[in-house]
């Protein structure tokens, strides 16, 4: 896999089927439904339990906004990932081009996915810091690899965003 910036796009090329599939999993992985710990992590309380008024207003007014914000980001990413759907036989050398103005949506969706997966599997700090764990022998190992792969993409996007401030905005 190669990753670089070309003009106003971030380009991920030489995508093998495995990594392409992991990319396609981003929107689904970012969905916390059915996992209370993931839901709690994405929508954490804004204050301690003693601040009941703040927490109640937050649930009423802010949480729906946050849900909308997160959903918009994953929808943008899902639309970009349409490039990877199609003939599976030509998957081997797929290239994904992400418009630079979608960088924030990608950062958000990747973060959502990482947080949801980590909450689902309850990864320890040690596991999350073990970037060289191999081979993948279980669903848990695969999910940890997914978290690290998405983190790698985030790092790349962040570097591009900070190198070219303002270019990511609509």
């Amino acid at each position: 896999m190669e990753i670089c910036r070309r003009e106003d796009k971030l380009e991920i090329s030489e995508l093998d089927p495995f990594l392409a599939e992991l990319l396609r999993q981003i929107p689904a992985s970012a969905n916390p439904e059915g996992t209370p710990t993931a839901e709690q992590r994405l929508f954490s309380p804004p204050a301690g339990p003693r601040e009941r008024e703040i927490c109640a207003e937050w649930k009423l007014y802010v949480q729906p906004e946050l849900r909308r914000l997160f959903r918009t980001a994953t929808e943008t990413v899902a639309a970009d990932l349409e490039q990877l759907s199609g003939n599976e036989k030509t998957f081997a050398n797929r290239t994904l081009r992400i418009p630079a103005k979608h960088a924030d949506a990608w950062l958000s969706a990747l973060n959502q996915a990482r947080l949801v997966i980590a909450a689902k599997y309850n990864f320890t700090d040690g596991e999350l810091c073990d970037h060289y764990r191999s081979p993948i022998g279980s669903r848990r190992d695969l999910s940890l690899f997914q978290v690290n792969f998405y983190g790698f993409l985030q790092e790349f996007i962040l570097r591009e965003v900070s190198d070219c401030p303002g270019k990511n905005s609509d």
Partner: protein
Amino acid sequence: MSWQPRRGSAEVAQSERSEGAISISNQNANPATVEAPVIEQETRSEEDLDLPWQVIVHNDPVNLMSYVTMVFQRVFGYPREKAERHMLEVHHKGRSILWSGMRERAELYVQQLHGYLLLATLEKIG
């Protein structure tokens, strides 16, 4: 994103007047009765009495350090060095106080931080 403004804060300001009359005698002038000055006893608004609040970001092993730094720069407008200092404080000490001030602003900051998926809370000082 928008945040419903907190109600009942600035609306409670009111003033009470103490009125009365006092006698003033002056050796060079005829005694006269003048109206006492109006003493305004202003009840301070709830907002004025509100203790400052602080915005706290808590450690999270999943969020990338570079990402957290970027969020602090964007939300608080901190220069990179200051944002990194706070990020490292979160990382090493488990939490960092990013800002302190009035409640509504603190709520807005926490809302923005949650929009970036950081673990953030507001707490009353004291």
